[in-house]
């Protein structure tokens, strides 16, 4: 029976093998190097159209670990950059560049071409006032369709429905964040705040003492009073009745996959408070029975729920 990945994982996880792990890892590193530099990017057509690693994850491995451009397969990286650029410009791409990592300067070159040198300098030195001034100018005066939010080590940029996360200290950017895990509570809070600011400003986002991000939606008493007491009362239920009697519980069930806790409570005025408690873990388990980390797409699912609730049943009735 040949070796399978579990054998390697188990071997590396076993402390008895510590002496041999470096040898084994050295073999893997050499193989990766050969694959990238000698087998894949040497044939540029292949590297462009059918790279030998799925969605250039080996490039991500290098960038996320802080390797400089000199240690990257340069042609492969140039293709990655070009694909993000083409996707941004609405041109045909071989694959949608989701979760693509780029160096900050290249990201800025694509999305803010005219100001990218200045922006790179300002962001690198965390000179936010200058950087945000450029952003604001572009939004107001050049009608560019993007929004941004800066918090701590993160700058979140949203172009249409695409979310790009700038890791300021690391000087790299996650473009089209989707399946990647959210790496910190600070970032999680920042994204929630960003969405709240954009789509549901009355909804509260805060960090609890137990390190959860709490998102509180308020369903006003007036709205609640319009919901029928039993589902059978009306043959053609209103939209509100239909939602709260038929869909709401399914939504809550769906939310429970990604929220640590959901609290439904009344405040002193009789409004219904829907509190979602989120952290970096979901309530789902993987094959090894470890909790799956919260991903950007999961968070988007949560935020879409809140946005719908807000737009359809909160603002209208307030």
């Amino acid at each position: 029976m040949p070796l399978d990945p579990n054998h390697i994982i188990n071997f590396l996880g076993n402390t008895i093998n510590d002496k041999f792990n470096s040898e084994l890892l050295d073999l893997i590193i050499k193989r990766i190097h050969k694959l990238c530099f000698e087998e894949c990017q040497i044939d540029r057509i292949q590297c462009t159209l059918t790279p030998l690693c799925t969605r250039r994850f080996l490039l991500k491995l290098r960038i996320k670990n802080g390797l400089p451009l000199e240690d990257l397969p340069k042609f492969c990286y140039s293709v990655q950059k070009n694909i993000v650029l083409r996707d941004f410009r609405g041109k045909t791409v071989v694959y949608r560049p989701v979760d693509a990592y780029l160096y900050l300067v290249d990201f800025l070159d694509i999305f803010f071409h005219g100001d990218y040198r200045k922006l790179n300098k300002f962001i690198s030195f965390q000179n936010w006032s200058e950087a945000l001034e450029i952003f604001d100018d572009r939004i107001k005066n050049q009608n560019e369709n993007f929004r941004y939010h800066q918090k701590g080590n993160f700058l979140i940029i949203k172009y249409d429905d695409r979310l790009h996360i700038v890791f300021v200290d690391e000087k790299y950017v996650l473009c089209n964040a989707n399946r990647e895990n959210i790496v910190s509570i600070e970032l999680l809070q920042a994204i929630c705040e960003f969405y709240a600011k954009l789509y549901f400003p009355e909804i509260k986002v805060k960090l609890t003492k137990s390190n959860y991000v709490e998102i509180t939606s308020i369903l006003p008493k007036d709205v609640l009073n319009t919901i029928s007491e039993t589902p059978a009362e009306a043959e053609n239920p209103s939209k509100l009745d239909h939602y709260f009697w038929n869909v709401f519980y399914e939504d809550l069930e769906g939310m429970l996959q990604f929220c640590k806790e959901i609290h439904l409570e009344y405040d002193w005025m009789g409004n219904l408070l829907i509190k979602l408690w989120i952290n970096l873990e979901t309530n789902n388990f993987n094959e090894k029975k470890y909790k799956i980390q919260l991903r950007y797409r999961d968070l988007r699912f949560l935020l879409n729920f809140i946005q719908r609730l807000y737009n359809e049943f909160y603002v209208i009735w307030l």
Partner: protein
Amino acid sequence: MANVNNDKDLMEKIKKMTTEGKIDAVVEKIANYLSQSDEENSIERLEYVLETISSIMGGRTVIRFLIENSIIDIPTVLQNLSKRDNLLRYSVLLNLKTIVEEESDLFLPYSVELLGSEDPNVREALLQLLIFIVGGEKEIEDEPLLELIASKLVDDRDFVIEKAIQTLKAIGKKNPSIITRILKKFTKECSENEDLKKSIDDILRSIVTVEKIEEIVEEEESKIEKPIEELVEKEKELETKEIELKEKEKELENKAVELEVKEILSSFDLAQNEKEKQLKEKEIELKEKELELKEKEKKIELEEKIDKQTLPKKLIKEEAAILDKEIELKKKELEFKKKKLELEEKEKKLEAIEIIEKQKVLKIKEELIQREKQLEQVEIDLKKKSLEEKERKIMEDEAKRIKEKKTELEKKEHN
């Protein structure tokens, strides 16, 4: 801005018409669009068109029509796309794949020009097109083109080298002998380049299978055999000439000896002075002839040397090595034949002995048969004799009985 919107509208129309299958109309529209471009926007327009049609159903057919109707040509496309976007260039190349496979004549004429392009992207793209061409039914046997491709194995850009390797592998799979020959030739020209050796090694390993080795060797042998045969023939000629010269030398020596003898004999004959003179003259003539012959011999030797010098030293060495091997092989063959003959002789002797023995056995058998026959005859004779005796006895007994009866009857009559 208005232009951009117009372009977008046109491209949307083109997309729609292409999906509806109105290819001729699309081609006409594109032709108009491109013909209205100026120096500044011509590349942009070409890119825009290719970008639009390369990603939609039926786009490939449109590209084919554009090429066939000379609205776009391959050198222009490759040279212009080279400057912009790798992804677009490779996408267009992929779209050209089936056209290239089926209609290589549209592309092959540009091969030499584009392989010599200063832009490595163009060289790479052309090599990729050649790979597509070979992927179809077409075989590339044009040696100057193949040599040009092989020359890209020492290109200054790695990705061009890699593409050249792939191209030669693709061609070599269909036609290994030509590629092997060209690569050998190329290796000799650049014998010190280690990377080149590796590349060539890589190509040869992938194209030369055990089955194909025999084909290549046979082809090469037939080509190598000719010069070897010529050399052997020349050697034979030289050997025969040498032998002839030696024979003539011997004749001359003999004649000289004869003359000397005659001289001695004639020294006693004073009256033969004139003859002596004549003889001396003849001797001189003979010596002259001898000298001439020696000169000729030297000339032949020189010619032989010149012939050898004109060939490259390596070739001479190789040929010498081949000749040595051939001689060794011939010797071995002769030894083998001798042994065969010996064996055959032994076999024949054994067969002869066998035959003799068989003959002896046959003779003995014949003798035995004769003896048996004699014995049978004797037996028959004996049986005949015994029968005759028995008959005689019976006859005698009968006669006796008749006599007795007669005597009895006579006695009775008397009584």
